């Protein structure tokens, strides 16, 4: 359709023609299917009632527990002890810091053969101009593999705890339907804020591009997978805040998340399998280092940066989405 191409849309937007917003941005409220109580089967109603009662019981018990278990005197003692422990800890750490070698001292113990080789031979051995990237993705790639797995672990735990699956979503809707207030919290969130949307239209592409640049240039300039991924994640979060989940879901669903993380972590793990195996068995690696400074250089580092970037992006967005709405 000619009307939907970007040139028309930009023209409309620039000339402030009416309807520009409706065509390009999500106008409709996300309607929730609030089930009609009369259509429910008795079993479903019973389940929902039990769910509600359980929730209320837990709330009441928590309240009881926090109020009854601690007497006011015990609470004062507890607070005093907290302050005491914290102050002792802070004092101890400050005292330790005074005994440490001075910052910037040329004879500092960390100025040893380890950092010397990173700085002097880093470029030659890893092919990465940015020696920090060379260090974390080549010299100490195993640690970084572990760090990526930390993100994966955290994402899995958060998804487990907060993601609504079909069944629990249905029942929580039922439970809501039994109460006076049939909508979830997200229903009342302000939508289609024009200022936010206009700003996001300009900012999101720039932020995403910057993120891609930081990831792809990770071996040449300051940056890399972690920082670039964080930028891209922020871009996605800005997009979803401005335009809503329905639009986001056109290109990014739970499945997309799963696939990207699967491919990225598998690529990382398998390529490192190769280099660990060849390294430990003293086999020459066939991966060329390329010309230092060129975009296609430094062997596996570029690939690994892209993988890490994807993992960080997806994890950041996943945290935001699951904490806000309970699904991707």
């Amino acid at each position, binding site marked *: 359709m000619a009307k939907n191409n970007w040139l028309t849309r930009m023209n409309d937007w620039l000339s402030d023609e009416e309807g520009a917003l409706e065509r390009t941005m999500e106008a409709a409220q996300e309607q929730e299917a609030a089930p009609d109580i009369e259509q429910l089967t008795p079993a479903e109603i019973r389940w929902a009632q039990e769910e509600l009662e359980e929730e209320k019981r*837990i709330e009441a*018990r928590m309240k009881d527990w926090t109020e009854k278990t601690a007497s006011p005197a015990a609470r004062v003692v507890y607070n005093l002890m907290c302050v005491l422990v914290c102050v002792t800890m802070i004092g*101890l*750490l400050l*005292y*330790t810091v005074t*005994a*440490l*070698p001075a910052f910037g001292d040329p004879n*500092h*113990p*960390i*100025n*040893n*053969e*380890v950092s010397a*080789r*990173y700085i002097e031979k880093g470029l030659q*051995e890893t092919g990465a101009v940015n020696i920090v990237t060379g260090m974390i993705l*080549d*010299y*100490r*790639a*195993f*640690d970084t*593999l*572990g*760090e990526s*797995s*930390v993100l*994966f*672990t*955290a994402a*899995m*735990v958060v*998804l*487990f*705890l907060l*993601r609504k*699956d*079909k*069944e629990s979503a249905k029942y929580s809707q039922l439970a809501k339907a039994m109460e006076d207030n049939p909508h979830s919290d997200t229903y009342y969130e302000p939508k289609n804020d024009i200022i936010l949307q206009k700003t996001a239209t300009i900012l999101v592409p720039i932020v995403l591009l910057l993120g891609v640049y930081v990831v792809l240039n990770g071996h040449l300039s300051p940056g890399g997978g972690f920082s670039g991924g964080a930028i891209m994640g922020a871009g996605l979060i800005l997009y979803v805040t401005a335009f809503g989940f329905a639009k986001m879901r056109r290109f990014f669903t739970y499945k997309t998340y*799963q*696939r990207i*993380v*699967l491919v990225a*972590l*598998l690529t990382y*793990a*398998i390529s*490192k*399998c190769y*280099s*660990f*195996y*060849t*390294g*430990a*068995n*003293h086999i020459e690696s066939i991966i060329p280092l390329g010309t230092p400074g060129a975009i296609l250089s430094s062997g596996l580092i570029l690939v690994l940066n892209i993988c890490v970037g994807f993992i960080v992006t997806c994890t950041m967005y996943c945290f935001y989405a699951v904490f806000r709405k309970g699904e991707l």
Partner: protein
Amino acid sequence: MQFVQNFPFMCILLTLICAVVTSVLKGRQARWLTMGLITAVTAMTATVLVYTLQTGDSYVYMMGHFPAPWGNEIRIGVLEALMMTVFCFVTLFAFVGGMVPSIREIEKSKYNIYCILVDLMFLALQALVYTNDLFTAYVFIEINTLAAAGLVMMRQKGRNLVAGVRYMMMNLVGSSLFLFGISILYTITGHLLMANIHESVAALAASGEYKIPLTIVVAMVTVGLAVKSALYPFEKWLPGAYSNATPSVAAMLSSLVSKGYIFLLIKFYVRVIGFDIICSMGVLDVLFIFGVLGMVMGSVNAVRAKTTRLMVAYSSVAQIGYIFAALGLRSEIGIICALWHSAAHAATKSMLFISCAEMDDACGGTHLRKHLCGAVYHSPLLALAFALGAINLTGIPLLSVFMTKVTLTQAAIEVGGRHMAIILAAVAISTLLNAVYFLGTAVNLFTPTKEGDEVLPPTVRKNPFTAIALIGMIALNIAMGLLSQPFLSALAEGLAKFA
């Protein structure tokens, strides 16, 4: 380099790959993949154990093209392979044994995440046992903490969520203390590789430089890892986490997660700082005192516990107390005793958790100790496994924990003085209390119900998986008891090459 030397690295990467692949699988496939993975890793680790026992030496495996102070490396010797083999068997049996209850208790659509977290916990355990680099250790401590906290919350009941949050908070305190510790250590030595730190620390200790930071480092790492492995005054997170989690998780947390941290602490003492320097610092005295307190207080709490699972959970506090008290004796036999008890307790406690959870369900879903009366008549295998674990932990000759008590007393007598008196008294009191609650419960299982007693019908059917796993666990426990001498001498041999 021989091909078998690649196995530890392959196990680690294979575990990670399986964890990642599991994220797109459905419950049933995820289950079988995880089971297959643990079996494969167990077989490979056992092969490595045979290899290291033959060579008797430990070797370093480079993770990448750069040798150690620059790149990462792992180090495998008799001690690491031996402990890891026991841990692998325990993981396998705990996972299989609690499989049917876990299917019942965990949301169906999220079952694969349970398998992922088991894989990740297993990955972290392997990495903690093999690593030769303090920062790698920290990274995998993080994975271990997150995965374990997720596992505690697997049954999404109110109690589990509270226990999970508490677990997370306490463990984060532990992790951050550990992180502070290793950053200060890096500042004063300039290294993260254990061997290099050892050299620098020896030089620092000889010259008397940086004495305060070094003491603070040892204190922080010790307290951090002690919080994470539930040494007595920090054990408040333990009972809730262990007694409410699904049986597999309780078994794995009590026998693997906490043992991984203890193994790391021993590695920190022996390989990183050097045991002589640690002995001159007085931190071991603190561990000794709290270990002894834990031995007694854990048992006292266990006697007072109303439910079987809570009792078994509190008994873990007592057993962790044994390990730390043994470490606090400042002698080589003490360390060997601590290592041996880590393995023995892992094998026994997992069996107790699996069998007592199943037995609760077989006795009408009760959790109270008194309702287990006569359990042997309708579920003989469960009762047998529980009774074996119970008499083992009480310390009956021919079984594994008896050897702990023997070596512990031996070590104490060697040290002599006040330590000897305290250990002898603590072992006596703790054994007595063990007998009260464990033998009391075990005897209860074999007592017929009286006329007019309420007998609850079983809530679940018996399942072959638990039965197979329990038979495996019984075999493992008996084998460890009978082979305790060769096991202990292998530990001694491994410890000599460990530093």
